[in-house]
Protein backbone atom coordinates (compact mmCIF):
# COMPACT_ATOMS: atom_id res chain seq x y z
CA UNK A 1 0.00 0.00 0.00
CA UNK A 2 1.09 3.61 -0.34
CA UNK A 3 -0.47 5.20 2.75
CA UNK A 4 2.04 7.48 4.45
CA UNK A 5 4.63 7.18 1.70
CA UNK A 6 4.17 10.79 0.60
CA UNK A 7 5.32 11.92 4.05
CA UNK A 8 8.17 9.43 4.22
CA UNK A 9 6.71 6.81 6.55
CA UNK A 10 8.63 3.55 6.32
CA UNK A 11 6.84 0.24 6.05
CA UNK A 12 7.17 -2.50 8.64
CA UNK A 13 5.51 -5.88 8.99
CA UNK A 14 1.77 -6.43 8.77
CA UNK A 15 -0.02 -6.32 12.12
CA UNK A 16 -0.85 -10.01 11.72
CA UNK A 17 2.86 -10.81 11.35
CA UNK A 18 3.82 -8.79 14.38
CA UNK A 19 1.03 -10.43 16.36
CA UNK A 20 2.19 -13.92 15.37
CA UNK A 21 5.77 -13.18 16.31
CA UNK A 22 4.77 -11.64 19.64
CA UNK A 23 2.46 -14.56 20.43
CA UNK A 24 5.24 -17.09 19.93
CA UNK A 25 7.54 -15.02 22.13
CA UNK A 26 4.89 -14.82 24.85
CA UNK A 27 4.38 -18.56 24.61
CA UNK A 28 7.85 -19.04 26.12
CA UNK A 29 7.18 -16.65 28.99
CA UNK A 30 3.62 -17.66 29.72
CA UNK A 31 3.05 -21.41 29.81
CA UNK A 32 -0.63 -20.87 30.46
CA UNK A 33 -1.37 -19.63 26.95
CA UNK A 34 -3.17 -22.07 24.64
CA UNK A 35 -4.18 -21.35 21.06
CA UNK A 36 -7.20 -22.62 19.17
CA UNK A 37 -7.22 -22.32 15.40
CA UNK A 38 -9.91 -22.67 12.74
CA UNK A 39 -7.48 -24.13 10.19
CA UNK A 40 -6.05 -20.79 9.11
CA UNK A 41 -2.94 -20.58 11.30
CA UNK A 42 -0.75 -19.86 8.28
CA UNK A 43 -2.92 -16.84 7.46
CA UNK A 44 -3.56 -15.55 10.98
CA UNK A 45 0.11 -16.18 11.85
CA UNK A 46 -0.54 -18.37 14.88
CA UNK A 47 1.57 -20.85 12.92
CA UNK A 48 4.77 -19.95 14.76
CA UNK A 49 3.10 -20.77 18.08
CA UNK A 50 1.81 -24.03 16.61
CA UNK A 51 5.30 -25.07 15.56
CA UNK A 52 6.94 -24.17 18.87
CA UNK A 53 4.19 -25.35 21.22
CA UNK A 54 2.26 -28.12 19.46
CA UNK A 55 0.94 -29.46 22.79
CA UNK A 56 -0.71 -26.13 23.48
CA UNK A 57 -2.19 -25.67 20.03
CA UNK A 58 -5.48 -27.09 18.78
CA UNK A 59 -6.72 -26.92 15.20
CA UNK A 60 -10.43 -27.71 15.42
CA UNK A 61 -10.97 -27.39 11.70
CA UNK A 62 -13.05 -24.92 9.75
CA UNK A 63 -15.64 -24.65 12.49
CA UNK A 64 -15.76 -21.21 14.08
CA UNK A 65 -18.63 -21.91 16.49
CA UNK A 66 -16.75 -24.83 17.97
CA UNK A 67 -13.53 -22.82 17.89
CA UNK A 68 -15.04 -20.25 20.21
CA UNK A 69 -16.67 -22.86 22.47
CA UNK A 70 -13.46 -24.83 22.90
CA UNK A 71 -11.61 -21.62 23.80
CA UNK A 72 -14.35 -20.90 26.33
CA UNK A 73 -13.92 -24.29 28.00
CA UNK A 74 -10.15 -23.96 28.09
CA UNK A 75 -10.49 -20.56 29.73
CA UNK A 76 -13.08 -21.81 32.22
CA UNK A 77 -10.54 -24.44 33.27
CA UNK A 78 -7.93 -21.78 33.88
CA UNK A 79 -6.04 -21.43 30.61
CA UNK A 80 -5.46 -18.15 28.81
CA UNK A 81 -7.08 -19.18 25.58
CA UNK A 82 -6.61 -17.43 22.26
CA UNK A 83 -8.94 -18.21 19.37
CA UNK A 84 -8.03 -16.94 15.95
CA UNK A 85 -9.47 -16.86 12.48
CA UNK A 86 -10.27 -14.37 9.75
CA UNK A 87 -12.08 -11.54 11.54
CA UNK A 88 -15.16 -11.92 9.39
CA UNK A 89 -15.60 -15.63 10.12
CA UNK A 90 -14.76 -15.30 13.80
CA UNK A 91 -17.06 -12.39 14.60
CA UNK A 92 -19.83 -12.85 12.06
CA UNK A 93 -20.04 -16.64 12.02
CA UNK A 94 -19.63 -17.31 15.72
CA UNK A 95 -21.23 -14.22 17.19
CA UNK A 96 -23.76 -15.96 19.41
CA UNK A 97 -21.05 -18.32 20.68
CA UNK A 98 -18.86 -15.32 21.51
CA UNK A 99 -21.78 -13.70 23.27
CA UNK A 100 -22.92 -16.73 25.28
CA UNK A 101 -19.69 -18.59 25.91
CA UNK A 102 -17.25 -15.68 26.37
CA UNK A 103 -18.82 -12.27 26.92
CA UNK A 104 -21.72 -13.28 29.17
CA UNK A 105 -19.61 -15.43 31.54
CA UNK A 106 -16.75 -12.90 31.22
CA UNK A 107 -14.11 -15.51 30.42
CA UNK A 108 -10.46 -14.83 29.76
CA UNK A 109 -10.51 -15.53 26.03
CA UNK A 110 -8.58 -13.54 23.48
CA UNK A 111 -10.08 -13.39 20.02
CA UNK A 112 -7.81 -12.36 17.18
CA UNK A 113 -9.37 -11.57 13.84
CA UNK A 114 -7.07 -11.16 10.86
CA UNK A 115 -7.73 -9.98 7.30
CA UNK A 116 -9.87 -7.13 8.56
CA UNK A 117 -10.97 -4.17 6.51
CA UNK A 118 -10.80 -3.40 2.81
CA UNK A 119 -6.98 -3.34 2.86
CA UNK A 120 -7.44 -7.07 2.36
CA UNK A 121 -7.90 -6.05 -1.27
CA UNK A 122 -8.20 -8.66 -3.96
CA UNK A 123 -10.07 -11.32 -1.99
CA UNK A 124 -13.16 -9.16 -1.93
CA UNK A 125 -16.07 -8.38 0.34
CA UNK A 126 -16.82 -11.92 1.53
CA UNK A 127 -13.45 -12.05 3.29
CA UNK A 128 -13.33 -8.44 4.54
CA UNK A 129 -14.54 -7.72 8.06
CA UNK A 130 -15.97 -4.20 8.06
CA UNK A 131 -18.52 -4.80 10.85
CA UNK A 132 -16.26 -6.52 13.37
CA UNK A 133 -15.57 -3.51 15.59
CA UNK A 134 -19.27 -2.76 15.97
CA UNK A 135 -19.99 -6.41 16.77
CA UNK A 136 -17.20 -6.81 19.31
CA UNK A 137 -17.74 -3.43 20.95
CA UNK A 138 -21.44 -4.06 21.44
CA UNK A 139 -20.68 -7.07 23.66
CA UNK A 140 -20.68 -6.16 27.36
CA UNK A 141 -17.35 -7.02 29.03
CA UNK A 142 -15.33 -6.87 25.79
CA UNK A 143 -12.16 -4.89 25.17
CA UNK A 144 -11.50 -4.03 21.51
CA UNK A 145 -7.98 -3.30 20.25
CA UNK A 146 -6.96 -2.07 16.79
CA UNK A 147 -3.19 -1.70 16.46
CA UNK A 148 -1.82 0.81 13.94
CA UNK A 149 1.47 -0.84 13.04
CA UNK A 150 3.86 -3.66 13.90
CA UNK A 151 4.99 -2.10 17.18
CA UNK A 152 1.43 -1.47 18.28
CA UNK A 153 0.45 -5.02 17.32
CA UNK A 154 3.27 -6.53 19.36
CA UNK A 155 2.33 -4.33 22.28
CA UNK A 156 -1.37 -5.15 21.98
CA UNK A 157 -0.64 -8.88 21.89
CA UNK A 158 1.18 -8.64 25.20
CA UNK A 159 -1.31 -6.22 26.71
CA UNK A 160 -4.29 -8.44 26.00
CA UNK A 161 -2.77 -11.31 27.97
CA UNK A 162 -1.95 -8.95 30.83
CA UNK A 163 -5.55 -7.80 30.81
CA UNK A 164 -7.97 -10.22 32.45
CA UNK A 165 -11.16 -10.74 30.50
CA UNK A 166 -12.35 -11.02 26.92
CA UNK A 167 -10.47 -9.08 24.27
CA UNK A 168 -10.88 -8.73 20.54
CA UNK A 169 -7.70 -7.85 18.69
CA UNK A 170 -8.01 -6.85 15.05
CA UNK A 171 -5.13 -7.45 12.68
CA UNK A 172 -4.65 -6.82 8.98
CA UNK A 173 -2.95 -8.44 6.03
CA UNK A 174 -0.83 -5.83 4.22
CA UNK A 175 2.47 -4.50 5.50
CA UNK A 176 1.74 -1.47 7.64
CA UNK A 177 3.44 1.95 7.64
CA UNK A 178 5.39 2.50 10.85
CA UNK A 179 3.82 4.96 13.23
CA UNK A 180 5.87 4.04 16.27
CA UNK A 181 9.53 3.52 17.02
CA UNK A 182 10.68 0.32 18.70
CA UNK A 183 9.81 -0.62 22.29
CA UNK A 184 6.53 1.20 22.20
CA UNK A 185 4.28 0.48 25.15
CA UNK A 186 1.01 2.14 25.91
CA UNK A 187 -2.01 1.57 28.05
CA UNK A 188 -5.35 0.01 27.13
CA UNK A 189 -7.94 2.77 27.17
CA UNK A 190 -5.46 5.63 26.74
CA UNK A 191 -5.19 7.18 23.31
CA UNK A 192 -1.73 8.09 22.06
CA UNK A 193 -1.18 11.59 20.69
CA UNK A 194 0.98 10.92 17.66
CA UNK A 195 0.88 14.49 16.36
CA UNK A 196 0.23 17.82 18.04
CA UNK A 197 -2.13 20.45 16.70
CA UNK A 198 -4.81 22.86 17.90
CA UNK A 199 -7.04 23.47 14.89
CA UNK A 200 -8.72 20.07 14.66
CA UNK A 201 -8.26 16.55 16.00
CA UNK A 202 -8.19 13.46 13.83
CA UNK A 203 -8.99 10.38 15.89
CA UNK A 204 -7.99 7.22 14.05
CA UNK A 205 -7.30 3.54 14.57
CA UNK A 206 -5.42 0.86 12.65
CA UNK A 207 -4.01 1.77 9.24
CA UNK A 208 -5.96 5.01 9.32
CA UNK A 209 -3.52 6.42 11.88
CA UNK A 210 -0.88 6.59 9.14
CA UNK A 211 -3.46 8.01 6.74
CA UNK A 212 -4.30 10.65 9.36
CA UNK A 213 -0.63 11.57 9.77
CA UNK A 214 -0.33 11.92 6.02
CA UNK A 215 -3.44 14.08 5.87
CA UNK A 216 -2.20 16.19 8.80
CA UNK A 217 1.09 16.88 7.06
CA UNK A 218 -0.69 18.11 3.93
CA UNK A 219 -3.10 20.17 6.03
CA UNK A 220 -0.13 21.77 7.77
CA UNK A 221 1.10 22.98 4.40
CA UNK A 222 -2.26 24.74 4.09
CA UNK A 223 -1.88 26.28 7.55
CA UNK A 224 -4.14 23.87 9.45
CA UNK A 225 -2.54 22.12 12.39
CA UNK A 226 -4.23 18.82 13.14
CA UNK A 227 -3.79 16.83 16.30
CA UNK A 228 -3.74 13.09 15.61
CA UNK A 229 -4.81 10.57 18.22
CA UNK A 230 -4.25 6.85 17.84
CA UNK A 231 -7.35 5.42 19.50
CA UNK A 232 -5.88 1.92 19.60
CA UNK A 233 -8.57 0.80 22.06
CA UNK A 234 -11.95 1.39 20.48
CA UNK A 235 -13.30 0.03 23.75
CA UNK A 236 -12.78 1.17 26.43
CA UNK A 237 -12.68 4.47 24.58
CA UNK A 238 -10.42 7.18 26.00
CA UNK A 239 -13.21 9.61 26.78
CA UNK A 240 -10.90 12.09 28.45
CA UNK A 241 -8.79 12.43 25.31
CA UNK A 242 -11.92 12.88 23.23
CA UNK A 243 -13.35 15.59 25.51
CA UNK A 244 -9.97 17.31 25.60
CA UNK A 245 -9.81 17.23 21.81
CA UNK A 246 -13.28 18.70 21.54
CA UNK A 247 -12.45 21.38 24.08
CA UNK A 248 -9.01 22.31 22.81
CA UNK A 249 -9.38 21.95 19.05
CA UNK A 250 -13.11 22.55 18.60
CA UNK A 251 -13.56 20.04 15.79
CA UNK A 252 -13.01 16.31 15.34
CA UNK A 253 -12.71 13.92 12.43
CA UNK A 254 -12.67 10.18 13.03
CA UNK A 255 -11.00 7.76 10.62
CA UNK A 256 -11.46 3.99 10.61
CA UNK A 257 -11.30 1.11 8.18
CA UNK A 258 -14.78 0.01 9.15
CA UNK A 259 -18.37 0.70 8.29
CA UNK A 260 -19.64 4.04 9.58
CA UNK A 261 -22.11 2.26 11.83
CA UNK A 262 -21.10 1.23 15.33
CA UNK A 263 -17.34 1.63 15.14
CA UNK A 264 -14.85 4.27 16.28
CA UNK A 265 -16.72 7.24 14.83
CA UNK A 266 -19.97 6.29 16.52
CA UNK A 267 -18.21 5.82 19.86
CA UNK A 268 -16.43 9.17 19.62
CA UNK A 269 -19.61 10.96 18.54
CA UNK A 270 -21.48 9.58 21.52
CA UNK A 271 -18.94 11.11 23.90
CA UNK A 272 -18.75 14.43 22.05
CA UNK A 273 -22.51 14.90 21.87
CA UNK A 274 -22.94 14.19 25.55
CA UNK A 275 -19.90 15.93 27.00
CA UNK A 276 -18.76 18.73 24.70
CA UNK A 277 -20.65 19.19 21.43
CA UNK A 278 -18.44 20.30 18.52
CA UNK A 279 -18.62 19.44 14.80
CA UNK A 280 -17.57 15.86 14.07
CA UNK A 281 -16.81 14.40 10.66
CA UNK A 282 -16.50 10.75 9.78
CA UNK A 283 -14.09 8.98 7.48
CA UNK A 284 -15.31 5.41 7.21
CA UNK A 285 -16.79 2.99 4.76
CA UNK A 286 -20.26 4.29 4.05
CA UNK A 287 -23.18 1.90 4.35
CA UNK A 288 -21.87 -0.45 1.67
CA UNK A 289 -19.78 -3.54 0.99
CA UNK A 290 -16.60 -3.09 -0.97
CA UNK A 291 -15.27 -5.22 -3.81
CA UNK A 292 -12.12 -6.97 -5.00
CA UNK A 293 -9.25 -4.78 -6.02
CA UNK A 294 -5.93 -3.18 -5.22
CA UNK A 295 -6.08 -1.86 -1.62
CA UNK A 296 -4.93 1.63 -2.68
CA UNK A 297 -7.68 1.82 -5.27
CA UNK A 298 -10.22 0.57 -2.75
CA UNK A 299 -9.17 3.16 -0.18
CA UNK A 300 -9.79 5.86 -2.79
CA UNK A 301 -13.02 4.37 -4.04
CA UNK A 302 -14.54 3.72 -0.62
CA UNK A 303 -13.55 6.98 1.02
CA UNK A 304 -10.56 6.07 3.19
CA UNK A 305 -7.71 7.95 1.48
CA UNK A 306 -5.78 10.82 3.13
CA UNK A 307 -7.57 13.11 0.63
CA UNK A 308 -10.89 12.07 2.13
CA UNK A 309 -9.58 12.93 5.61
CA UNK A 310 -8.40 16.34 4.36
CA UNK A 311 -11.79 17.01 2.82
CA UNK A 312 -13.58 16.02 6.02
CA UNK A 313 -11.26 18.17 8.15
CA UNK A 314 -11.91 21.23 5.99
CA UNK A 315 -15.60 20.58 6.23
CA UNK A 316 -15.66 20.39 10.08
CA UNK A 317 -13.40 23.44 10.40
CA UNK A 318 -15.94 25.40 8.37
CA UNK A 319 -18.56 24.42 10.92
CA UNK A 320 -16.48 25.43 13.95
CA UNK A 321 -18.15 27.98 16.21
Amino acid at each position, binding site marked *: MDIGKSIGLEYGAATRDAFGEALEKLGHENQNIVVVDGDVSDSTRTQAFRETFPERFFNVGIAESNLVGVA*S*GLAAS*GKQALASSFAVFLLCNAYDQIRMSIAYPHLDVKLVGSHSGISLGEDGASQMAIEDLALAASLPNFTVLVPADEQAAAWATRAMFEHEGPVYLRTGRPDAPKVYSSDTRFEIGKAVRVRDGDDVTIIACGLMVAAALEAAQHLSNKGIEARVLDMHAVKPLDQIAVIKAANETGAIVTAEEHTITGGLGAAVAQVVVKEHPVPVGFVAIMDTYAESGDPNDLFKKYGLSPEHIIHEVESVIDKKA
Partner: protein
Amino acid sequence: MPQTTDLNRHSIGELQRISHKLSQQIIEITTKAGSGHPSSSLSMIDILTGLYFSGVMNYDPKRPDWPERDRFILSKGHGAPGLYVTLAEAGYFDPALLSTLRETDSPIEGHPNMRVLPGVEASTGSLGQGLSIGLGHALAARVDGRHYRVYVLIGDGESDEGQIWEATMAAAKYQVDNLTLILDYNKFQQTGPVEEVMPALTPPGDKWRAFGWYTHEIDGHDMNKVVSSLEMMKSVVNQPQIIIANTKKGKGLSPFEANDTNRLHGKALSEDQAKTAIAELDAMYAKLEGA
Protein backbone atom coordinates in the same frame (compact mmCIF):
# COMPACT_ATOMS: atom_id res chain seq x y z
CA MET B 1 -6.40 -35.25 47.41
CA PRO B 2 -9.85 -34.37 48.81
CA GLN B 3 -12.71 -36.02 47.03
CA THR B 4 -16.31 -36.21 48.01
CA THR B 5 -17.04 -39.31 46.03
CA ASP B 6 -17.66 -41.43 49.08
CA LEU B 7 -19.97 -38.88 50.64
CA ASN B 8 -22.05 -39.00 47.52
CA ARG B 9 -22.00 -42.74 46.99
CA HIS B 10 -25.59 -43.88 47.34
CA SER B 11 -27.28 -47.21 46.69
CA ILE B 12 -29.69 -47.60 43.80
CA GLY B 13 -32.62 -47.45 46.19
CA GLU B 14 -31.32 -44.25 47.70
CA LEU B 15 -30.74 -42.78 44.25
CA GLN B 16 -34.34 -43.52 43.32
CA ARG B 17 -35.44 -41.78 46.50
CA ILE B 18 -33.30 -38.74 45.60
CA SER B 19 -34.64 -38.67 42.06
CA HIS B 20 -38.17 -38.77 43.44
CA LYS B 21 -37.45 -35.81 45.69
CA LEU B 22 -35.75 -33.83 42.92
CA SER B 23 -38.60 -34.54 40.48
CA GLN B 24 -41.06 -33.20 43.02
CA GLN B 25 -38.94 -30.09 43.53
CA ILE B 26 -38.77 -29.49 39.77
CA ILE B 27 -42.55 -29.45 39.59
CA GLU B 28 -42.92 -27.31 42.69
CA ILE B 29 -40.44 -24.60 41.75
CA THR B 30 -41.57 -24.27 38.14
CA THR B 31 -45.22 -24.16 39.16
CA LYS B 32 -44.41 -21.49 41.73
CA ALA B 33 -42.44 -19.51 39.15
CA GLY B 34 -45.24 -19.98 36.64
CA SER B 35 -42.77 -20.75 33.87
CA GLY B 36 -39.73 -22.83 33.05
CA HIS B 37 -39.24 -26.24 31.49
CA PRO B 38 -40.35 -28.95 33.92
CA SER B 39 -40.81 -31.63 31.26
CA SER B 40 -37.27 -31.22 29.88
CA SER B 41 -35.94 -31.18 33.43
CA LEU B 42 -37.79 -34.35 34.40
CA SER B 43 -36.57 -36.31 31.40
CA MET B 44 -32.97 -35.96 32.56
CA ILE B 45 -33.35 -36.00 36.34
CA ASP B 46 -32.54 -39.69 36.78
CA ILE B 47 -29.35 -39.12 34.81
CA LEU B 48 -28.35 -36.14 36.94
CA THR B 49 -29.18 -38.08 40.08
CA GLY B 50 -26.97 -40.94 38.92
CA LEU B 51 -24.16 -38.55 38.03
CA TYR B 52 -24.08 -36.54 41.22
CA PHE B 53 -25.08 -39.08 43.87
CA SER B 54 -23.78 -42.51 42.86
CA GLY B 55 -20.13 -41.62 43.40
CA VAL B 56 -19.42 -41.40 39.66
CA MET B 57 -18.33 -37.77 39.83
CA ASN B 58 -15.62 -36.18 41.97
CA TYR B 59 -16.65 -32.81 43.28
CA ASP B 60 -16.55 -30.69 46.38
CA PRO B 61 -19.47 -28.31 46.82
CA LYS B 62 -17.40 -26.28 49.29
CA ARG B 63 -14.83 -25.64 46.60
CA PRO B 64 -16.69 -25.26 43.31
CA ASP B 65 -13.46 -24.15 41.60
CA TRP B 66 -11.35 -27.08 42.78
CA PRO B 67 -9.15 -27.67 39.69
CA GLU B 68 -9.35 -31.48 39.90
CA ARG B 69 -13.13 -31.59 40.08
CA ASP B 70 -15.10 -33.43 37.44
CA ARG B 71 -17.19 -31.02 35.38
CA PHE B 72 -20.82 -31.31 34.39
CA ILE B 73 -22.14 -29.01 31.68
CA LEU B 74 -25.83 -28.74 30.99
CA SER B 75 -25.85 -27.81 27.33
CA LYS B 76 -29.66 -27.82 27.09
CA GLY B 77 -29.85 -24.79 29.35
CA HIS B 78 -33.64 -24.77 29.52
CA GLY B 79 -33.30 -27.85 31.73
CA ALA B 80 -32.04 -25.41 34.38
CA PRO B 81 -34.63 -26.36 37.06
CA GLY B 82 -33.34 -29.93 36.94
CA LEU B 83 -29.77 -28.72 37.35
CA TYR B 84 -30.66 -26.39 40.20
CA VAL B 85 -32.43 -28.99 42.33
CA THR B 86 -29.49 -31.35 41.76
CA LEU B 87 -26.87 -28.77 42.76
CA ALA B 88 -28.86 -27.78 45.84
CA GLU B 89 -29.13 -31.43 46.87
CA ALA B 90 -25.39 -31.83 46.30
CA GLY B 91 -24.73 -29.00 48.74
CA TYR B 92 -23.63 -26.16 46.45
CA PHE B 93 -26.16 -23.74 47.94
CA ASP B 94 -29.06 -23.48 50.34
CA PRO B 95 -32.08 -25.38 48.94
CA ALA B 96 -34.26 -22.53 50.24
CA LEU B 97 -33.01 -20.53 47.23
CA LEU B 98 -34.80 -22.90 44.85
CA SER B 99 -38.15 -21.26 45.50
CA THR B 100 -36.77 -18.00 44.07
CA LEU B 101 -36.48 -19.52 40.59
CA ARG B 102 -36.69 -16.79 37.91
CA GLU B 103 -37.18 -13.95 40.40
CA THR B 104 -35.28 -10.68 40.12
CA ASP B 105 -32.08 -10.69 42.21
CA SER B 106 -32.10 -14.48 42.49
CA PRO B 107 -29.09 -16.47 41.22
CA ILE B 108 -31.58 -19.20 40.30
CA GLU B 109 -32.07 -17.66 36.86
CA GLY B 110 -34.26 -18.80 33.98
CA HIS B 111 -31.21 -20.36 32.38
CA PRO B 112 -27.89 -21.28 34.03
CA ASN B 113 -25.47 -18.43 34.66
CA MET B 114 -22.04 -19.65 35.79
CA ARG B 115 -21.17 -16.27 37.28
CA VAL B 116 -23.91 -16.20 39.87
CA LEU B 117 -24.49 -19.76 41.03
CA PRO B 118 -21.79 -22.10 42.38
CA GLY B 119 -21.65 -25.48 40.66
CA VAL B 120 -22.83 -24.14 37.30
CA GLU B 121 -19.94 -24.84 34.94
CA ALA B 122 -21.20 -23.03 31.84
CA SER B 123 -23.68 -20.32 31.00
CA THR B 124 -26.09 -21.95 28.61
CA GLY B 125 -29.46 -21.32 27.05
CA SER B 126 -28.41 -20.86 23.47
CA LEU B 127 -28.51 -24.41 22.17
CA GLY B 128 -25.63 -26.43 20.80
CA GLN B 129 -22.75 -24.82 22.67
CA GLY B 130 -22.09 -27.04 25.69
CA LEU B 131 -20.23 -29.84 23.96
CA SER B 132 -17.61 -27.43 22.57
CA ILE B 133 -17.13 -25.95 26.02
CA GLY B 134 -16.83 -29.43 27.50
CA LEU B 135 -14.23 -30.30 24.90
CA GLY B 136 -12.28 -27.20 25.94
CA HIS B 137 -12.31 -28.38 29.57
CA ALA B 138 -11.25 -31.87 28.49
CA LEU B 139 -8.32 -30.46 26.49
CA ALA B 140 -7.31 -28.22 29.40
CA ALA B 141 -6.98 -31.36 31.54
CA ARG B 142 -4.58 -32.76 28.96
CA VAL B 143 -2.49 -29.58 28.80
CA ASP B 144 -2.32 -29.37 32.60
CA GLY B 145 -1.78 -33.09 33.22
CA ARG B 146 -4.93 -33.34 35.31
CA HIS B 147 -7.21 -36.35 35.55
CA TYR B 148 -10.68 -34.93 35.85
CA ARG B 149 -13.55 -36.03 33.64
CA VAL B 150 -16.03 -33.86 31.79
CA TYR B 151 -19.71 -34.73 31.41
CA VAL B 152 -21.94 -32.87 28.98
CA LEU B 153 -25.66 -33.37 28.64
CA ILE B 154 -27.38 -32.39 25.40
CA GLY B 155 -30.91 -32.71 24.15
CA ASP B 156 -31.95 -34.56 21.03
CA GLY B 157 -33.63 -31.50 19.53
CA GLU B 158 -30.51 -29.53 20.37
CA SER B 159 -28.60 -31.84 18.08
CA ASP B 160 -30.09 -29.97 15.11
CA GLU B 161 -27.38 -27.41 15.80
CA GLY B 162 -24.35 -27.75 13.53
CA GLN B 163 -22.00 -26.88 16.34
CA ILE B 164 -22.81 -30.22 18.02
CA TRP B 165 -21.31 -31.94 15.01
CA GLU B 166 -18.32 -29.60 14.82
CA ALA B 167 -17.54 -30.50 18.42
CA THR B 168 -18.27 -34.18 17.79
CA MET B 169 -15.66 -34.24 15.02
CA ALA B 170 -13.07 -32.32 17.00
CA ALA B 171 -13.49 -34.48 20.12
CA ALA B 172 -12.89 -37.58 18.01
CA LYS B 173 -9.82 -35.99 16.43
CA TYR B 174 -8.30 -35.28 19.84
CA GLN B 175 -9.36 -38.68 21.25
CA VAL B 176 -10.52 -37.12 24.48
CA ASP B 177 -11.41 -40.14 26.61
CA ASN B 178 -12.12 -37.93 29.63
CA LEU B 179 -15.23 -36.58 27.87
CA THR B 180 -18.60 -38.29 28.26
CA LEU B 181 -21.58 -36.93 26.39
CA ILE B 182 -25.07 -37.86 27.49
CA LEU B 183 -27.93 -37.51 25.05
CA ASP B 184 -31.24 -36.94 26.78
CA TYR B 185 -33.15 -38.77 24.06
CA ASN B 186 -36.68 -37.79 24.99
CA LYS B 187 -37.80 -37.71 21.33
CA PHE B 188 -39.46 -34.30 21.43
CA GLN B 189 -38.41 -30.80 20.57
CA GLN B 190 -40.37 -27.58 20.75
CA THR B 191 -42.89 -28.07 17.97
CA GLY B 192 -43.06 -31.82 17.72
CA PRO B 193 -41.32 -35.19 17.59
CA VAL B 194 -37.62 -35.07 16.71
CA GLU B 195 -38.16 -37.63 13.97
CA GLU B 196 -40.56 -35.23 12.25
CA VAL B 197 -38.68 -31.98 12.82
CA MET B 198 -35.31 -33.43 11.83
CA PRO B 199 -35.66 -37.05 10.73
CA ALA B 200 -31.99 -37.57 9.85
CA LEU B 201 -31.01 -37.35 13.52
CA THR B 202 -32.53 -40.73 14.24
CA PRO B 203 -31.17 -43.18 15.14
CA PRO B 204 -28.55 -41.06 16.91
CA GLY B 205 -26.11 -43.84 17.83
CA ASP B 206 -25.18 -44.42 14.20
CA LYS B 207 -24.16 -40.79 13.80
CA TRP B 208 -21.76 -40.70 16.73
CA ARG B 209 -20.36 -44.14 15.87
CA ALA B 210 -19.62 -42.89 12.37
CA PHE B 211 -17.58 -40.06 13.88
CA GLY B 212 -15.51 -42.51 15.92
CA TRP B 213 -17.19 -42.25 19.29
CA TYR B 214 -17.82 -45.05 21.76
CA THR B 215 -21.60 -45.31 21.98
CA HIS B 216 -23.86 -47.00 24.47
CA GLU B 217 -27.66 -46.87 24.59
CA ILE B 218 -29.70 -47.27 27.77
CA ASP B 219 -33.08 -46.69 29.35
CA GLY B 220 -32.42 -43.31 30.92
CA HIS B 221 -34.88 -43.92 33.73
CA ASP B 222 -33.34 -47.23 34.80
CA MET B 223 -31.07 -46.12 37.63
CA ASN B 224 -29.03 -49.31 37.52
CA LYS B 225 -28.30 -48.72 33.84
CA VAL B 226 -27.59 -45.03 34.33
CA VAL B 227 -24.99 -45.69 37.00
CA SER B 228 -23.38 -48.72 35.41
CA SER B 229 -23.06 -47.02 32.02
CA LEU B 230 -21.49 -43.92 33.57
CA GLU B 231 -18.99 -46.16 35.38
CA MET B 232 -18.30 -48.11 32.21
CA MET B 233 -17.37 -44.97 30.29
CA LYS B 234 -14.42 -44.42 32.58
CA SER B 235 -12.71 -47.48 31.12
CA VAL B 236 -12.97 -46.35 27.48
CA VAL B 237 -9.56 -45.40 26.14
CA ASN B 238 -8.69 -42.88 23.40
CA GLN B 239 -12.31 -42.27 22.44
CA PRO B 240 -14.91 -39.78 23.56
CA GLN B 241 -18.07 -41.55 24.65
CA ILE B 242 -21.78 -40.97 24.34
CA ILE B 243 -24.54 -42.48 26.42
CA ILE B 244 -27.78 -42.37 24.51
CA ALA B 245 -30.33 -42.27 27.28
CA ASN B 246 -33.88 -43.09 26.18
CA THR B 247 -36.07 -40.91 28.33
CA LYS B 248 -39.57 -39.51 28.58
CA LYS B 249 -40.44 -35.87 28.86
CA GLY B 250 -42.48 -35.53 31.99
CA LYS B 251 -41.34 -39.02 32.98
CA GLY B 252 -44.65 -40.86 32.97
CA LEU B 253 -46.75 -38.17 34.60
CA SER B 254 -50.23 -37.71 33.16
CA PRO B 255 -50.34 -33.90 32.90
CA PHE B 256 -47.36 -34.11 30.55
CA GLU B 257 -48.16 -37.36 28.80
CA ALA B 258 -51.73 -36.28 28.09
CA ASN B 259 -50.12 -33.68 25.86
CA ASP B 260 -48.52 -36.05 23.43
CA THR B 261 -48.14 -33.31 20.85
CA ASN B 262 -45.66 -31.76 23.26
CA ARG B 263 -47.82 -28.76 24.04
CA LEU B 264 -46.33 -28.63 27.49
CA HIS B 265 -42.79 -28.04 26.24
CA GLY B 266 -41.48 -25.05 28.15
CA LYS B 267 -44.58 -24.64 30.26
CA ALA B 268 -45.06 -24.97 33.97
CA LEU B 269 -47.91 -27.02 35.36
CA SER B 270 -50.86 -25.28 36.97
CA GLU B 271 -51.26 -25.86 40.70
CA ASP B 272 -53.90 -28.51 40.07
CA GLN B 273 -51.79 -30.26 37.46
CA ALA B 274 -48.81 -30.12 39.82
CA LYS B 275 -50.84 -31.78 42.56
CA THR B 276 -51.83 -34.56 40.19
CA ALA B 277 -48.26 -35.01 38.98
CA ILE B 278 -46.80 -35.10 42.47
CA ALA B 279 -49.39 -37.66 43.58
CA GLU B 280 -48.44 -39.79 40.58
CA LEU B 281 -44.77 -39.41 41.40
CA ASP B 282 -45.43 -40.58 44.92
CA ALA B 283 -47.29 -43.60 43.60
CA MET B 284 -44.49 -44.40 41.15
CA TYR B 285 -41.95 -44.22 43.92
CA ALA B 286 -44.04 -46.35 46.27
CA LYS B 287 -44.17 -48.94 43.51
CA LEU B 288 -40.37 -48.84 43.17
CA GLU B 289 -40.01 -49.26 46.91
CA GLY B 290 -42.36 -52.22 46.85
CA ALA B 291 -40.58 -53.89 43.94
